[in-house]
């Protein structure tokens, strides 16, 4: 191939765009509570579902979710997976558990890590509780909760997952 016909197979075109990102009013309220060690959800005025983390609207009804609800830091495993590859930049060592958890008092799950458990024993319906970082490290961040650890409580039947009051299974 002569020089004038040399194929150009790529060019470098780096993109740098700077943004001052805002999470939104609903997320800001949620994160301000997490900074104080409190987990909150928001209730839909129409269907009464409690969302965590809230985004400001009920995705089912399309209405603003203004009512704030304090939730427990106890939760139920709705689903989980065992991850065998590391998270870039995260010290957690594989294999670790990523779980869909429904906190007591909420109807929607959110995703967090599980630890202090035998991965082989993790199961749907299992009861767990948040393990928080030391209070002086709390920030506007979900990783104020390091992970969730199993609780010595009876399993929640599948049909009741996502339907527990804030007081838990006994309440």
């Amino acid at each position, binding site marked *: 191939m002569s020089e004038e016909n040399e194929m150009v197979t790529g060019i470098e075109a780096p993109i740098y*765009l700077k943004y001052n*990102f805002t999470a939104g009013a609903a997320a800001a309220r949620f994160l301000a509570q997490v900074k104080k060690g409190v987990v909150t959800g928001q209730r839909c005025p129409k269907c009464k579902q409690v969302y965590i983390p809230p*985004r400001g609207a009920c995705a089912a009804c399309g209405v603003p979710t203004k009512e704030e609800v304090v939730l427990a830091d106890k939760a139920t495993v709705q689903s989980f997976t065992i991850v065998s590859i590391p998270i870039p930049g995260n010290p957690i060592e594989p294999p670790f558990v990523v779980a869909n958890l429904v906190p007591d008092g909420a109807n929607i799950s959110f995703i967090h890590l599980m630890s202090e458990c035998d991965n082989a024993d993790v199961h749907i319906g299992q009861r767990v509780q948040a393990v928080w970082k030391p209070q002086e490290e709390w920030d506007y961040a979900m990783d104020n909760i390091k992970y969730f650890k199993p609780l010595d409580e009876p399993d929640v039947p599948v049909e009741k997952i996502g339907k527990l009051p804030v007081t838990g299974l006994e309440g």
Partner: protein
Amino acid sequence: MREIAIVGYQQSDCVSDAGAQNEVELIIPVVGRVFEQVGITNAQDVDFVCSGSCDYLQGAAFAFVLGVDALGAVPPIKESHVEMDAAWALYESILKIRMGHADSALVYGFGKSSPGELPIVLSQQLDPYYLATQWVDTVSLAAMQARLMLDKGLITERDMAEVVSRSRRNALNNPRAQLKGDISADDVLAEETYLSPLRKGDICPVSDGASAMIICTVEQAKAWGKPYAVISGIDHRIETHNMGMRDLTDSVSTRAAAERAGMGNGKVDVAELYAPFSHQEIILTRALGLGDDTSVNPSGGVLAGNLMMASGLSRIGEVFDRIVAGEAQRGIAHATSGPCLQHNLVTVLEAA
């Protein structure tokens, strides 16, 4: 062909910074008001939904999907999106209704441009090999276009300043406008140039906000019993991305779109033109052949407030508002996309 009506239109205020509000929080009030205007509850009550937005504005992939949270999408709805101004979402919705796949549609557009540097963000819509890599921003490109017109003697700086003055004065009657005031062309000319030959007044502001519209068949409009205007024509045309090949002092694509949309079939009482720069309003007015009997940009146009990805839809909404208010019998709305008026859409609206 099925005749299509606009039955509702709402827009948020144009604000320079919507602060902590995210996109869903911007959309919900506007969409809620347009449902109320038509007398329906949520997106379950229309057959189709189409939105226009651009993820580059907020700097997050698939950010537009979060907008669906504003709709009430349980049970699932038929929904689509264009990575463009919502005027093109309206175009898609019209096709959907004309094909008989829907009788009604919600169209909405939203943009929160304040988190980024909009003129730089928009440089990334340019041709990726030769232009985007140079980071040529939209304001600089428009300034070159204005310079070309001045040097050819097609416009004067005073012509441009008069466009700005009229925009600011018209916007005094627009409660949703961002920039308004009783300023003269002399006041505008007294400003320093910003990106020569453009003064800040020649350039649309950066605005955050949303707009929404409901369209339907004329039969559905009658069933809802709300005042409506008829969309008698719509067309869009695009020019090459190679700006060296375009006549930047004219807008042939706007003229072609207007002809195809049937603008010439009657008198034009009102025209809302998406001209982000003062000289572009002159290009568009000439390309469309608008005379003194047409009221141009009575809202103040986008020089008074520019909701990226919603302003095109808002132009159509502004004409709709004037027709249902009885101030106009027939009007046209223009929307644009791309640098220096590259892509243009013209809608013709008529009283029912």
